[in-house]
């Protein structure tokens, strides 16, 4: 309002406007022609609008679209990086490492950047050990991409040298590679991983989720050249894979592998498998197969050798089924251990076929049938059982069903139900033809007999206790054990499997390999046994397929493998001998021999002073 009195003056000045050019000395007259307030308002309004627009824009940026722009900004320098982590270690039951992940370097490149410096490609190719034109072609092919592997899983020292060349666009990344220090001996059980560290076979596959670590994420600020300027935050910490302790004992495993390999060479066989179970716990102490492969260089091996035959391949059990036939008949109450069977004249009709023995054994009791492995005797026993009784017993013992060990690719074998039998089936099955089993199933069934009739599901993990299931009366189990003990004693079919100082119960098996339309001239040599008979510790099944040199009998081919492995295992696990008398007898015999030739040697070991034990020794020494 204070401006009001000036208004008339302004108007007056406007009227004088035409005279303005004539009188420049009167500047006031110049202003007179403008609407000052209007102009001021215009400028102020304009400026105000501008700043309002700026504020609006600022609000838009800072408050409304803040997220979007912050993200855009971050994308230009913030990176989320994966933190690689290790796969869990696999150890044996004593903590010896069986599979270890160790870091290696993988070299990668940004082809966009790399193709901008073509003059350095030959240098890079030389360092990588590839032809220069090959590398150039590959880089050019991918020149619109931002990532390519140059070489994966290199020796870290070599990778460092390549990175040190400082070629733009070449980087290294740490990856982990699996190493198997036990090599071939344990290859089948452990399996292997692929190049991305995922389990492919064996335990590596079965326990992949447990072993695999979860890679972490971290936020870092990177500069234009990809160097990390600052670690900003940990998005997710890396969780390394958990370790796994297997039930396998490395030493027994090695023994089993070595003995199988030796027997394979000696007998000219095509393949072999062995399984050792801990009777009390169901733990798999060893599982070996030949031929094997090198798990540290999987690509080079023969695919066929990758199979864990002890669990994936099935064989006709042959005579190793006889103890089960006998146990079934004992359980049904149709025979006793002393029942006599007349096996003359060494054969018995089976439909239009014949069941034959290698010799005419005449009259045998039940124990004799097992000791001599008489097919005729087993047939006579099976005849006293109904089809259903026979089938139910074998089924109960786990034949024809997976052992649920959790191993990938486990075969259930085959045990045809009575409805699918022909008239001759029961008799042929009584001595182990017409059905197929895996070595693991046989070992499990024998372990159940040795364990007082209690079967335990096999496991590969140390300390995993599966509840035993009572399958068989302990008394019958004990009787069958005593019968099987005669097999390895003089007069039995597998004296090669006898171990000095221990009572061994077992059963040999020799079966012709089934081919389309009949049986071939190929054999499978089997031995399954448990040791020691008093307080059994180990059950072992050995299968040697198609031995071509020398004998093909289970006792002669598979028996020695059992002997050598079990002898070692008993010593390694400090199992007290249950047949010291035999040991002492052998010792005194050797001493007598030594005395006969040379002057009597001084007593080798200092005798135990006093104590009743000493008297015992004296008493049994002749």
């Amino acid at each position, binding site marked *: 309002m204070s401006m009001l009195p000036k208004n008339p003056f302004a108007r007056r000045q406007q009227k004088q406007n035409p005279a303005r050019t004539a009188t420049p000395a009167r500047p006031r007259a110049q202003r007179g022609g403008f609407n000052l307030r209007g102009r001021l308002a215009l400028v102020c309004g304009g400026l105000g609008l501008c700043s309002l627009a700026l504020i609006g824009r600022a609000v838009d940026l800072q408050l409304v679209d803040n997220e979007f722009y912050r993200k855009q900004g971050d994308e230009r320098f913030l990176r989320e990086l994966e933190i690689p982590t*290790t796969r869990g*270690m696999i150890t044996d039951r004593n903590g*010896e*490492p*069986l599979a*270890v*992940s*160790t*870091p290696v370097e993988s070299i990668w490149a940004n082809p966009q950047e790399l193709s901008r410096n073509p003059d350095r490609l030959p240098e890079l190719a030389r360092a990588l050990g590839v032809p220069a034109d090959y590398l150039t072609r590959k880089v050019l092919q991918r020149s619109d991409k931002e990532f390519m592997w140059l070489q994966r899983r290199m020796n870290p020292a070599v990778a460092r040298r390549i990175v040190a060349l400082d070629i733009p666009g070449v980087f290294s990344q740490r990856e982990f590679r699996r*190493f198997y*220090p*036990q*090599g071939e*001996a344990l290859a089948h059980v452990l399996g292997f991983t692929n190049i991305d560290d995922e389990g492919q076979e064996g335990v590596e596959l079965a326990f992949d989720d447990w072993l695999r670590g979860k890679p972490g994420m*971290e936020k870092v600020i990177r500069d234009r050249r990809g160097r990390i300027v*600052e*670690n*900003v*935050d*940990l998005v997710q910490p890396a969780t*390394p894979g958990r370790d796994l302790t297997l039930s396998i004992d*490395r*030493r027994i495993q*090695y023994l089993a592998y*070595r003995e199988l390999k030796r027997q394979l060479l000696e007998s000219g066989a095509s393949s072999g498998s062995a399984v050792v179970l801990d009777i009390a716990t169901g733990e798999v102490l060893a599982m070996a197969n030949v031929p094997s492969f090198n798990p540290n260089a999987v690509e080079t091996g023969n695919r066929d050798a990758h199979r864990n035959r002890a669990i994936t391949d099935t064989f006709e059990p042959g005579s190793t089924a006889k103890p089960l036939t006998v146990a079934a008949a004992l359980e049904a109450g149709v025979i006793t251990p002393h029942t006599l069977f007349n096996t003359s004249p060494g054969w018995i009709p089976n439909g239009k076929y014949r069941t034959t023995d290698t010799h005419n054994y005449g009259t045998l009791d039940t124990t004799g049938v097992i000791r001599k492995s008489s097919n005729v005797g087993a047939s006579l026993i099976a005849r006293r059982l109904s089809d259903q009784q026979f089938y139910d017993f074998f089924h109960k013992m786990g034949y024809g069903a997976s052992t649920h060990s959790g191993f990938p690719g486990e075969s259930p074998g085959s045990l045809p139900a009575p409805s699918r039998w022909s008239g001759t089936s029961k008799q042929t099955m009584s001595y182990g033809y017409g059905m197929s089993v895996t070595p693991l199933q046989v070992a499990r069934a024998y372990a159940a007999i040795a364990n007082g009739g209690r079967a335990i599901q096999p496991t590969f993990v140390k300390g995993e206790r599966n509840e035993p299931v009572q399958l068989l009366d302990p008394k019958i189990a004990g009787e069958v054990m005593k019968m099987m003990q005669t097999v390895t004693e003089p007069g039995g079919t597998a004296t090669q499997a006898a171990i*000095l*100082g221990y009572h061994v119960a077992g059963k040999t098996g020799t079966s012709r390999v089934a081919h389309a339309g009949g049986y071939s001239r190929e054999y499978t040599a089997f031995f399954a046994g448990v040791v020691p008979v008093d307080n059994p510790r180990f059950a072992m099944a050995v299968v040697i397929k198609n031995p071509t040199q020398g004998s093909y009998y289970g006792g002669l081919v598979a028996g020695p493998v059992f002997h050598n492995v079990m002898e070692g295992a008993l010593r390694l696990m400090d199992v007290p*001998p249950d047949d*010291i008398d035999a*040991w*002492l007898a*052998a*010792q005194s*015999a*050797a*001493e007598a021999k030594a005395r006969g030739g040379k002057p009597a040697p001084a007593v*080798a*070991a200092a005798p*135990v002073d006093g*104590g009743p*034990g*000493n008297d*015992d*020794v004296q008493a049994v020494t002749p």
Partner: protein
Amino acid sequence: MNAGRILLAVLLVMNVASAIGVVYARHEHRQLFVALDRLTHERDELNIDFGRLQLEQATWAESNRVDQIARTRLGMKFPEGAEIEVVRP
């Protein structure tokens, strides 16, 4: 009126103080994070080193190798049954 001003002043001071606190905490977070990162890295390196050493040990202790050396270089063998003396407690 006076009380209001005092309150305002107090709030202002608290505001500034908390702002500085935020800055400080953030700074400390960064520093601790860097330390954590370094230590994790160190731990991983040690773990990896340990794994490598275990691998090396397992390779040296490979049963086949031990067996070979014991038999050939050291001339060891498993005792025959007759060479074993049974001692009873």
